[in-house]
């Protein structure tokens, strides 16, 4: 056995805490080690070249690289080893940085630990066997989950590249939150004007299959070969037949709209047969079975059906439809929920009628909103003064610790719009104004110059004025003046933050991805893989990954589309060989492993044996550990390799210096 040991300094990341020189001295003395070297940056080109050259010059047959996490550079070093003509799986990494130097301060102890880790790797690697990666073809279709601006943009990018896209949206229309906005900061573009062309393009694109009012129910398979089950909820209107004439809404037996309209956040009413908003895509009505008389009593005159007699698009008997599709990649763009203002009792949302959330004001300002674009109080008066309370549900350990990133800017935008429409005095109660984007600071200056007042201090209380004039007092410390201020206003706007979707955890499980501490979907790397997830072939776009504004969302959806395209355009995907396999002679057919496999990769074959589909196997090792007869083995995690590694690790702890013998059936 001729093993080469390479210790990386990682600048001072490793060499600052571990005595690298002593470590290579020790490694060189281990049995089977032909040479041990140190280098400042092993991952650099000269570092890799060093390994390649040594393999040729010294006829090395095993390589141990003690550097950072294999997560980052295992690929790099396996590739380097492969280029020198060795099987890439003869290379093994020791994670000196994350497991040792970064987490310890005591230099001698850290060095000792490094020696233990290197010894374990040297002993393990000699048991490594050559392995081959397998290639499997990938499906060229992509699933995009969520039809907000992120999903729309990603779907269009992929469709324009000639790939077929399934766009699945939970609501009856695409558009998402952006469709509810009036203007967008800082340019004050009309949100609908820039969004609706993209929505129409989605509908018209021959490469996009648009499924609205649908939800993903099941996801099976693996990168490049996902099998996804989608449930298309019944909207009781046949999508192909409806032309969006909206005559059924006119004809509905409800002469007055009576149901709170969720699109307008309950500020207006709709009928049981409805279209969410005028520019909805698809232009297809939906019937709400909760409120429709026909569903409740079965005794409706069904005037809607009468008026639609020619097309006959209304079908009260419509059932949910299950579709199963095969896709190569999935982009999640499931968006965010708006923070519920009522969770902070001292702002009085839900208690005082004139406390609004920012999204409600967004609807009031909008020309197609419940008041036709008039900013008025619930009693119809125009407000003479408005207080905008920042950081509601953000930067607060009681609710959400993170900054929601968009509230400062949308508050500035709303301040501008309210002032423009009503001439009211507008007061912003803020902790810090965060305006770091392109042209954001300029917009902040513009709004300040327009006479909007900025009070630096988080609003501490909102309560009705004592004189009974119906006004609300916003109380805050003006921290710049060092005074407490009580400012009477007619309207309070809560700049509510962004939260993960209420069902984000269920969606996370469905797609087998992770969430970060704040509940948003976790990206693979915060800087270098911001749209990837830990599940290969599943990408993130938009606010499901964290709060962000529209420019950032669109940039991210483009990146997710590019990643998906890179995956499916290659045509094949390489699978890691660290899969499990059954030694069929030893298998007793007890079926213990079958229900344990999280990937449904194990089947029971006729000869009364378990068999693992290596394409489905992710190498989690659950079956290997559970098999009572020890007849499931896993590549790269063979018993010999694991036990030898443990022996090596514990050798220095052994009594009398001898190796610790692990009891076990080898």
């Amino acid at each position, binding site marked *: 056995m001729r093993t080469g040991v390479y210790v990386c300094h990682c600048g001072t990341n490793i060499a600052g805490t571990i005595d690298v020189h002593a470590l290579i001295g020790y490694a060189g003395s281990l049995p089977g080690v032909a040479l041990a070297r140190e280098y400042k940056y092993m991952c650099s080109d000269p570092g890799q070249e060093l390994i390649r050259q040594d393999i040729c010059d010294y006829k090395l047959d095993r390589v141990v690289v003690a550097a950072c996490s294999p997560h980052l550079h295992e690929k790099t070093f396996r590739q380097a080893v492969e280029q020198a003509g060795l099987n890439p799986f003869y290379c093994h990494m020791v994670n000196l940085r994350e497991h040792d130097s970064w987490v310890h301060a005591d230099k001698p102890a850290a060095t000792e630990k490094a020696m233990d880790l290197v010894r374990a790797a040297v002993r393990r690697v000699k048991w490594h066997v050559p392995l081959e990666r397998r290639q499997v073809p990938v499906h060229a279709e992509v699933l995009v989950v969520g039809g907000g601006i992120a999903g729309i943009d990603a779907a269009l990018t992929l469709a324009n590249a000639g790939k077929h896209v399934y766009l699945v949206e939970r609501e009856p229309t695409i558009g998402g939150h952006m469709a509810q906005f009036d203007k967008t900061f800082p340019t004050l573009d009309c949100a609908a004007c820039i969004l609706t062309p993209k929505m129409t393009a989605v509908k018209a694109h021959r490469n996009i299959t648009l499924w609205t009012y649908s939800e993903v129910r099941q996801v099976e398979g693996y990168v490049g070969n996902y099998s996804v089950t989608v449930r298309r909820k019944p909207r009781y209107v046949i999508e192909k037949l409806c032309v969006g004439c909206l005559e059924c809404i006119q004809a509905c037996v409800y002469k007055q709209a009576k149901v709170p309209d969720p699109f307008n956040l309950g500020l207006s009413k709709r009928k049981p047969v409805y279209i969410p908003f005028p520019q909805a895509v698809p232009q297809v009505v939906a019937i709400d079975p909760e409120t429709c008389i026909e569903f409740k009593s079965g005794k409706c005159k069904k005037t809607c059906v009468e008026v639609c007699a020619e097309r006959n698009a209304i079908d009260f008997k419509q059932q949910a439809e299950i579709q199963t599709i095969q896709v190569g990649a999935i982009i999640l763009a499931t968006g965010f929920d708006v923070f519920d203002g009522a969770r902070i009792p*001292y702002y009085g949302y839900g208690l005082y009628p004139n406390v609004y959330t920012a999204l409600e004001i967004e609807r009031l300002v909008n020309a197609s909103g419940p008041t036709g674009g008039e900013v008025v109080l619930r009693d119809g008066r125009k407000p003479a003064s408005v207080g905008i309370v920042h*950081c509601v549900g953000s*930067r*607060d*350990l*009681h609710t959400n610790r993170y900054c929601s990133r968009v509230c400062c800017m949308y508050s500035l935008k709303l301040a501008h719009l309210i002032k423009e429409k009503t001439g009211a005095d507008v007061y912003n109660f803020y*902790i*810090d104004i965060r305006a770091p984007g392109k042209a954001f600071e300029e917009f902040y200056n513009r709004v300040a110059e327009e006479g909007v007042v900025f009070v*630096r*201090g*988080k*609003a*501490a*209380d909102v309560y009705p004025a004592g004189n009974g004039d119906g006004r609300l007092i916003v*109380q*805050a*410390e*003006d*921290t710049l003046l*060092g005074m*407490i201020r009580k400012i009477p206003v007619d309207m309070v706007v809560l700049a509510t933050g962004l939260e993960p979707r209420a069902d984000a955890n269920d969606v996370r499980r469905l797609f087998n991805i992770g969430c970060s501490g704040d509940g948003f979907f976790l990206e693979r790397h915060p800087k270098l893989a911001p749209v990837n997830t830990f599940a290969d072939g599943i990408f993130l776009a938009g606010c499901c990954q964290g709060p962000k504004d529209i420019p950032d969302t669109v940039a991210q959806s483009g990146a997710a589309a590019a990643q998906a395209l890179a995956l499916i355009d290659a045509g094949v995907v390489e699978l890691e060989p660290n899969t499990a396999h059954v030694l069929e002679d030893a298998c007793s057919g007890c079926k213990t492993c079958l229900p344990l496999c999280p990937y449904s990769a194990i089947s029971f074959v006729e000869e009364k044996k378990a068999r693992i589909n290596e394409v489905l196997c992710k190498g989690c090792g659950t079956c290997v550990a559970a098999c009572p007869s020890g007849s499931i083995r896993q590549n790269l995690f063979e018993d010999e390799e694991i036990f030898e590694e443990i022996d090596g690790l514990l050798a220095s702890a052994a009594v009398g210096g001898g190796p610790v013998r692990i009891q076990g059936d080898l």
Partner: protein
Amino acid sequence: MKALRAFWFRPEMRRKMKFQREADPEWAQQVAQRPGCEGLFSCLQCGTCSGTCPLSIYMDFAPRRIIGLVREGFREDALGCQTIWLCASCYACAVHCPRQIRITDVMYSLKREALQYKLYPRRFPIPVLAQEFYGIVSDRGRSSEFWLVLRMALHSNPLQLLTLIGTGWRLFRTGRLSLHKEQIEHVKELQAELAGRRGT
């Protein structure tokens, strides 16, 4: 007359700048380690504490500024101010603080230190009351209101006694104010116990 007033009551000028040598960052660190004072350094200076405080309108430094002073290590300002003595321990600030800093506990910690090093504002009635109350109770095991008020007034503002005479007389006449010095039975044991505790 106006000219005369301007001559006699010249406004006092106070320097509003701080030299860095006046700051004691080690003291700030030490305060942040005391129980209840954790998280001082995570303060956002958002002003929620001052905004919710029912007494901040009378304070020389609102609670937010106290946290700021402590954090920067301006010990004498933080310990010599009236704010910590005005705090009524309603805990509204601690409940609302977005960083969950226990501001009331910080106030208590500063009060104790101000008493220990006699840095509290001289003749400000609240620390005087605290001192005198502790003195009477540790001497006799019980508080006697007449003597407590008398001692507080003598040590803070003796002239105030003149304004209190009327009220005091009415209370005395209706039996609400006793000149009797109350005392527990085994006062020696209490004193020995307290002396032992002070020693440790």
